Structures are given as structure tokens and as C-alpha cells.
């Protein structure tokens, strides 16, 4: 059912706040508008920080996947 193709996945598991968010920021900076990035995070704080940043920065949070225990995958499309 995965309609959105992920162009790049960043594994930030094991990294603590603000590690996963900063990885996403860094990678989106280098991406093209329209590309879809995913970041894997095992840090609980990401559930709040990443969606808030994506909204503020004007990108699109495509979805959040619940992976193995305690790990989430945030799928983000670069909008601008």
C-alpha cells in the first residue's frame, strides 16, 4: 500500500534529541523540492519535534510509520 516512493532513508536510531531532527534538517537541505525523505528515530521526543518542525518549515509530513518497538519512521516530502 506504499504509494509514496521514499528517495532516501536516514537511520537516526540510537541518536538522542535533537539528533534525528537535525539529521532530517541536514538531509532536506541537500534534497530537491518534491523528494521524499524518511528518518528512523528511536527517540521519544521526535514524535513531537519532527512534525512541529516539518510544519514550521513548510514541508509535508506524508506519514509516520510505527516500526519495531519504540522506533518510528517519519516520511517527509520537501515542499520548498
Amino acid at each position, binding site marked *: 500500500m506504499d504509494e509514496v516512493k521514499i528517495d532516501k532513508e536516514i537511520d537516526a536510531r540510537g*541518536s*538522542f*534529541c*535533537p*539528533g534525528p*531532527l*537535525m539529521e532530517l*534538517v541536514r538531509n*532536506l*537541505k541537500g534534497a530537491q523540492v518534491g523528494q521524499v525523505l524518511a528518518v528512523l528515530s528511536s527517540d521519544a521526543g521526535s514524535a513531537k*519535534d519532527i512534525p*512541529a*518542525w516539518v510544519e*514550521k*518549515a*513548510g514541508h509535508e509530513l506524508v506519514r509516520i510509520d510505527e516500526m519495531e518497538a519504540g522506533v518510528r519512521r517519519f516520511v517527509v516530502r520537501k515542499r*520548498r
Partner: protein
Amino acid sequence: MPRIVVLGGGVGGTLVANLLAKKLRKRAEITLVSATPRHVYQPGWLYVPFGWQEPRSLSRSLRSLLNRMVALEIAEVQGLDLEGRKVHLPERDLEYDYLVIATGARIVPEEIPGFVEGAHHFYTEEGALKLQKALKSFRGGKVVVGVGGLPHKCPPAPLEFTFLLEEYLSREGLRERTEITYTYPINRVFSIESVAQIAEPLLQERRVRIETFFNVESVDPERRVVTSLEGTELPYDLLVMVPPHRGARFLEGLPIADAQGWVQTDRSTLQVKGYPGVYALGDATDLPISKAGSTAHFEAPVIAERIAAEIEGREPDPRRSHYDGKVNCFLEVGHERATFLAFDYQHPPKPPAPSWIYHYEKLAFNKAYWYLVPTGVV
């Protein structure tokens, strides 16, 4: 005789080399490689822009701080052959049985367009003196203080700088004519939540504007505007930004380093992942803790104990061979007050109410550093 090579002459490298020399005496050959012959106390740069610290008193001869049994080689590391256990120096290769990577962090202001031309910082002696000159001729206007990238050395420094700047401007009679804005890349004023909780009301009390989720994209020195990736534009008359940081250049592209050049390090043993006998500490690691001298100070005994035990053919002392993430640091809040942060992997800091006691302790520590830290007295 086993050969130990320590790369870096900052807090971590100097202390590991001295602790190993004390433990092993003549049972190992210890060489420390440093790019410069001076050991610099970098936290002191924070005070230089205000004229409150003479930069000359912030460095000493590295040789004078090292145990006589440590050989010092002044050279810039060109590369590392992890399989062949060799360090490439400009003139020769240095073979090792044990390697300690303590090469710190370097600043890369050129990674942000316009930063070099438009922004000031206090992350080098030269930068701090340039900022001192700019502050001397400053007559009021908009000051933006912020962070050009995470992680960076001394996480509290941009907060401390903002508080000290507010004090400085008040003393100079310029506070009423100045608007101060503090920016931070994430959605609070500091990465550690408990510290953000005490810092934010203090910033508000000092009438500092706060702009969070501000990841610097570029600086326009002509228009005097700093723009964030999030699309916010801030005009400035004086811009003070912590530059982005990376690990040492020779590490980039090696299998032990991540994309920013930070060394992938075990959080407890401090062994470089996948390479027994190779350790990393201080700013050079990818550990999710403060890049600060204090971190290196608490990590160094773990590495010294592990290497010494292996050379002596014994088990490492379990109480001294694991790093628990301990970091201590002061946080200046201006007007001769400071607070104190003590934390580890399991326990976030619970900063006490700011007091003059911590401020004077910090000033005393800045002076006592030379006698206490590099030689391993504390």
C-alpha cells in the same frame, strides 16, 4: 614495547597521555601528535569579545603540560591506515599498537553562504578579537545571536554569550537602544529540556526576543539579513553565530567516521566501533553528549585504564573502565550570576537557581584549570 599514539593536544589527548604515562611509566612508548605546540583553554574565548579576558592568558606550551615520558610530535595528521595501524604524518608514518583519537571539532563557517563576510563568532581567538572590535564601535541597533549548526562545542555558549551581551550593553548604557534576538535550531532555547526551562524565562526577563526552529540557511552581508531554512528573515546590525562544526578533516571518508567526520564510538567503553585498540574521546566522537572539555576530562581515565590493563595483561578495573556520560559545566546568566549543570546518560541536569557562587566558581575554575585538569590532579 607497545606503542601508544595519541592524536590531539587538547583536554582529552593531553590528559589521556599523562594518565597513561603515570600508570605505565616505562612500559610503553607514548607519542602525542598535535597540530599546534600550544594547548588552548577554549572556554575563555567567551569573555574576550567584552574585553573581560586577555586571550594571551588562555594558552600555554603543550610540552610544559605533558609528562616527560610522553614524546610530543608537532604535525598535522594527513591520514589514517586502520588496517595497517599507521598514522600518516607529512614527513613520515607513525605505527601504533594503541591509538587514541582526540582531534576535537573544527569550525566550518564557510558552509553557510555569507557567514564569513557577514557574521561574527567567538570560536577562535581571532574571531573573538574581531567581535571585540565590532562591539567597541557598536552604538545600538539589532543584534542577532544564534546557532549555525548542531552539534557545536560548548552547548551553553550561545546562551551564555546572550546573557553576557545583555549585561555588557546595560553597563555601556546601550541596552535601551538595542534589540537582542536569540535563535536556536530546535523548538526550544536549548537542546536539554530542563536547561531550556530555566533559560527561557531568564531570556524573557532580560527582554531578549526568542526565535526557535531557526536553522540558518544564509547570511546576506549587503542587506544585513540572516535567513533560516524555515523561511524566517531577521535583519541585523550585528550578527553573532556559532559556526557549523565538523570532525577533523583526515577523518572524513574513513569507515570509522560519520558524514560530519564524528568518530563512531562505543558510549561506555569509548572504543572506536569495529577497531579494538582504537579509542576516541572528547569533541571527536559521535556520542550524543556535550562537546566540552568536561566530557573529555571524565572520559580520559576510562581509556587510560583500558589501555593500561591490556598492556599489563589484567582485566580493567570495572569501576574505572566505563564512561557513564558524566558532564559538568557552568552556565553564565549575566550580572555576575551563573548556574551549574551536572548530568550523565541516565540523569538530565537539574540546574540550581542562578547564584553569584557559581559565577565565581566558574571564574576560579578558569584560572585553576591549568593546575588541575591537563595533569590529572582532579
